[in-house]
């Protein structure tokens, strides 16, 4: 049982116009097995929240705390956060030319576990996970995200998540830009990880469609750098009907 706790998080970025505060006091607690949908309009700061938790150097934490099972996440380096059990499926995964997917996956697994995986079982695990995500075996020989289609990139993110087995996973608009078939495949992967490892999920999304495939326990409406309203799955249905206008009016 793990808990990611975000308290009063304030985050700024440097822009050409000067320092800009993007997160303005975020409070959120995610336990193992729970799925929290974070829904909000573009530019509300959802990716900033995701990157800040993962430790991207562009974002400066000016106030507040993030802990994982009581450990101070903000004190950890980027790779230490991953080793502690955090995972970020990125909205825009980065190309790393010349580094093969299979080499990358093995290197990451070894780093996370602190020892190289047993070759025999590892090869089988990767093969199985790729089959589940309908990824061709030839994927392993391609460069990381190099020339991948949008859907391939997202499946590759979920592949990593399934193999690295984090405690808490942040999915930043993993659903955006996917057709329904790909959305279903990716959602199945997330649900498998929840079933198999009791993964806690922060499901950042702009659209409600993915919530038909991944059932949230909680829904948080994210507007202008903070949580504007929280509730159960019924809140998502309301958002589907009404959109974000109501929140933007008072923001």
């Amino acid at each position, binding site marked *: 049982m793990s808990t990611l706790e975000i308290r009063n998080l304030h985050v700024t970025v440097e822009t050409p116009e000067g320092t800009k505060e993007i997160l303005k006091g975020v409070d959120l607690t995610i336990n193992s097995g729970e799925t929290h949908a974070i829904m909000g309009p573009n530019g509300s700061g959802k990716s900033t929240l995701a990157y800040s938790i993962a430790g991207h150097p562009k974002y400066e934490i000016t106030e507040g705390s993030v802990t994982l099972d009581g450990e101070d996440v903000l004190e950890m380096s980027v790779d230490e956060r991953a080793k502690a059990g955090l995972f970020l499926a990125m909205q825009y995964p980065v190309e790393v030319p010349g580094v093969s997917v299979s080499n990358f996956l093995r290197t990451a697994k070894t780093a*996370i576990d602190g020892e190289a995986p047993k070759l025999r079982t590892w090869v089988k695990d990767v093969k199985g996970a790729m089959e589940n995500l309908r990824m061709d075996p030839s994927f392993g020989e391609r*460069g990381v995200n190099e020339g991948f289609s949008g859907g391939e990139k997202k499946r590759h993110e979920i592949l990593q998540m399934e193999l690295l087995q984090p405690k808490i996973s942040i999915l930043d608009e993993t659903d955006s830009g996917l057709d329904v078939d790909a959305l279903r495949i990716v959602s199945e992967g997330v649900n498998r990880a929840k079933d198999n490892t009791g993964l806690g999920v922060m499901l950042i999304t702009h659209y409600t469609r993915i919530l038909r495939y991944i059932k949230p326990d909680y829904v948080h409406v994210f507007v202008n750098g903070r949580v504007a309203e929280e509730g159960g799955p019924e809140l998502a249905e309301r958002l589907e009907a009404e959109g974000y206008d109501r929140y933007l009016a008072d923001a």
Partner: protein
Amino acid sequence: MTVTDHTQATADTAHSHGVIPDKSRADRIVSFDVDAFPVPTGREENWRFSPVRDLKTLFADEAAEGHLEWATSELPAGVTLTEVAADDAQARTVRAPGDRASAVAVKHAGGAMALTVAANTVVDEPITIDLTGVGGEVRGHLLVELGQSAEATVVIRRTGTAHYSELVSVDLQDNAGLNLVLLQQWDEDTIHAGEVVARLGRDSRLRGTVVTLGGKVVRLNTSAAFAGEGASVDLFGLYFADSGQHQEHQLFVDHAVPKCTSRVTYKGALAGKTAHSVWIGDVLIRAAAEGTDTYELNRNLVLTDGARADSVPNLEIETGEIEGAGHASATGRFDEEQMFYLRSRGISEDQARKLVVRGFFADLIHEIGVPAVEESLMRQIDLEIAHVEEELGDE
């Protein structure tokens, strides 16, 4: 036909004061006469990026007493390595020297070593020549000659310390195929100015790979001229410059006859405040060279502040009847987003850097086609990256 670009790229203006550009690359003089080339001042088109002061001894028209130690793998049947007297060596050289250092090298080398592969001889195993500098001024003249339809892989590895200038002449008779690998793994005080000149007969194939890791100054220029139709040349280069190193590679591909193909692919990494690399890629497609297909690429990866990569592609086209001609040159900073991506998967900073740099060079290294060389290069690159980490740690 696709012409991507055929403008002369503008080089760094800070270095172009007083430089008179050639009208055409074809006009550049070549000569065995040392006096045909004044001692370079650094203002000449082809010396403007070079640290001429460090190269000074290589311009002196005087005898040199030093030598490199030679160690050669056992030569298979049909392959010979012989000493050739100066007159004969000059006659067998495919093109006269293109600069003073090269002319001095030929004049004072005291003849040449000739590696000759007889016609129709196909050598499976790489022929390796290890040249080790033991200090001093050294001039070298080497002939690599492949008879008609001969095929071979030749790996020449240079280590140790020297002030070394050389001319390497590569003569491919019709339908010959050569994979030539030149490894510059000198000690850190070596000064090396070399010229490789290749002549490609009809239907011949040259793959030339240059790897420059060591030395204080390495300036290695490669020229390939097509003498018969249907020939192809692939020139690959890999370099890694640290603080205090100057690594320069100039290329000239001369398409003088129809239906030949050339590919130039050079990649370099730079780390450390005074690391400097220079790449100049000249391709000339003469009026007669219809059906030419050429592409040249230079990419530089700048790992730390202060390092400097100059990259000048230059494509000169005198006929419209070509298959394709293009070039690309890109110099980029080390990508923090790639680092973040890898590290967010638990991979440590050092290891992530290693992956990115290895990835940058991976396709190039696989082109060498000599497994032992490829593996040892990967290890060498890891060592170079380890140096980068030390430098970053010092800051």
